[in-house]
């Protein structure tokens, strides 16, 4: 049995929301828009909780970096099975390097044998935090996992990764940083019993200064624009016309 898995969860715009760009093109409009836990983080959390239920992990700790609303995300994490959570509160822009540095400090404090993130956040699609964290810690990493088997007695995990060529199975020594891909599992719904239990569960509150990290963004977003709208196609009335048009466009 390993003692702890740390699961970072990010508060992002809900996947079902139709996003709009702010008029000044500085980013996506998040005012009064529904926010939820990043779906890939949910998958990572679900896997960690399942491992706990299997009896191979003692404690699952959720952590989030961000504004006050993150406590809702952490409450959800606990309703889904995390034992406790940590909120590093900040109103600054969150970027992967800052997150990785905060997580590194927390890892040194908490000593988890696994850090399990989602492969990327659906707002910035960076796909960097897990990799940066592994680098900062000097740990190995297995990203895009679609299957995880923990072997605590041998102090390792056997993971299957989704890669461009197909599936790759690796054996990694603990401690390790893993990131979850879509097909790893199907997350559960928070049961009402657990929602009520989560109310009384502790959220440790910290600031980046207390953790000892400068999370000032290193990259500046210059502008965000919508992709060009799809131009409608042309309808033709016969196969002859179709062949003609294709020839004219130089495709045939």
């Amino acid at each position, binding site marked *: 049995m390993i003692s702890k898995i740390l699961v970072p969860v990010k508060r992002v715009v809900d996947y079902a929301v139709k996003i709009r760009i702010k008029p000044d093109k500085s980013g996506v409009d998040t005012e009064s828009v529904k926010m939820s836990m990043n779906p890939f983080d949910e998958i990572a959390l679900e896997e960690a909780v399942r491992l706990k239920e299997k009896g191979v992990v003692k404690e699952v700790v959720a952590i989030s970096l961000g504004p006050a609303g993150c406590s809702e995300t952490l*409450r959800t994490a606990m309703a889904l099975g995390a034992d406790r959570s940590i909120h590093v509160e900040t109103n600054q822009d969150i970027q992967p390097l800052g997150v990785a540095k905060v997580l590194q400090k927390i890892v040194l404090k908490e000593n988890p044998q696994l850090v399990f993130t989602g492969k990327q956040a659906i707002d910035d699609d960076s796909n960097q935090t897990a990799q940066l964290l592994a680098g900062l810690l000097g740990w190995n990493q297995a990203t895009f996992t679609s299957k995880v088997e923990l072997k605590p007695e041998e102090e390792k995990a056997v993971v299957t990764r989704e890669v461009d060529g197909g599936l790759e199975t690796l054996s990694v020594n603990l401690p390790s940083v893993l990131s979850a891909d879509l097909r790893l599992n199907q997350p559960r719904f928070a049961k009402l019993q657990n929602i009520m239990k989560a*109310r009384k569960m502790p959220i440790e509150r910290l600031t980046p200064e207390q953790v000892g990290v400068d999370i000032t963004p290193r990259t500046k977003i210059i502008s965000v624009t919508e992709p060009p709208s799809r131009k409608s196609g042309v309808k033709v009335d016969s196969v002859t016309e179709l062949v003609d048009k294709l020839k004219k466009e130089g495709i045939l």
Partner: protein
Amino acid sequence: MHRLRLLNTGIRTQQICRKFHSTPARRVGSLHSFSEEEKLLKDTVARFAKEVIAPKVKKMDDISLMDPTIIRALFEQGLMGIETSATYGGNGMNFTSAILAIEEIAKVDPSVSVVVDVQNTLVSIPLRRWGTEEQQQKYLPRLCTDTVGCFCLSEWGSGSDAFALQTTARREGNSFVLNGTKAWITNSGESQFFIVFANVDHSMGYKGITAFIVTKHNTGIKIGKRENKLGLRASSTCEVNLVNCVVSEQDVLGEVGKGYKYAIETLNEGRIGIAAQMCGLAQGALDHTIPYLMQRKQFGQTIASFQGVRFDYAWLATEIEAARLLTYNAARLQEEGKPFTKEAAMAKLFSSEVATRVASKCVEMLGGVGFTKDFPVEKYYRDCKIGQIYEGTTNIQLETIGKLVVKEYE
């Protein structure tokens, strides 16, 4: 006299206890202000409804049968014991949480919503409020985890005139023997637990009506004819037959002869649940309609951009919001221990009317496709009609409200 005083104290204590629940005593904010748990519950149930219930809605309606896996899932999620205290296996949440759950499910399927509504209001309230400690310990945990219940009041000869019920309860030693036929009983097809209203002494009129707890273990209770309904088809509505059904006096709920009071008070509160179901139904119909209107074009523009159509759905959205606010307000009044009978009746009256208007208009705005079973909106149109009928017809609500309005001027 002495017993009456104890009963009143009991109810007041219940109301005071409810004040210290997770509801803030003073509301600062709109009726759309929810606590963290209420928000989390609303989101979770919405997702659950969309992912677990939605794929099965059409089939359940087509075959007029509730999928047993859905009922099991409702129990597993804790949705069948929302307010019941954790001591008895429930979740100890507040009334608004139950209302939100009923509303969110109704957006997807009003039939599944009514199962949750009846279980959490009509069945749970009498047991929690007037049950003895033994009865609560014996039955509440089962109602929270695996046993569907139902509320057996109506009969073929007594609907609105509920107290004209003919089912008799004859005293025999330490038991009562029940004989009669109950009709229109929601959930009865899946039920193993029944709250049955019967008269111990017809010469006393409604003051003989007594509430009894009956389970499938009792002899003499049988589910009869299942209604073939216009809407809410997946929800079972059956006859319940009592033939020399023996009920121990331990299973009398509350006091003999006080059943009429329990029935009225339970229905007064339960109708807020129906109001929530109707709000959800209306919203669900609109949610299926507007996106289509934004896509379909006629005369070179989207249906949604025609001013006449815009005025139509603007009205619908306004009425749904008004119905919702009436519903949430009635729920909050109940939580605060304040009188809510008038507001609850208004919420149910208005929500059911709005649901029929919205569902009807949505079918119309969709045009031909709205009239086919390929599109989900015709189901909402069929489902909505019962809202004006069950748990107190529209006319009964108007009577209730009218009488309370006059009282304010006396």
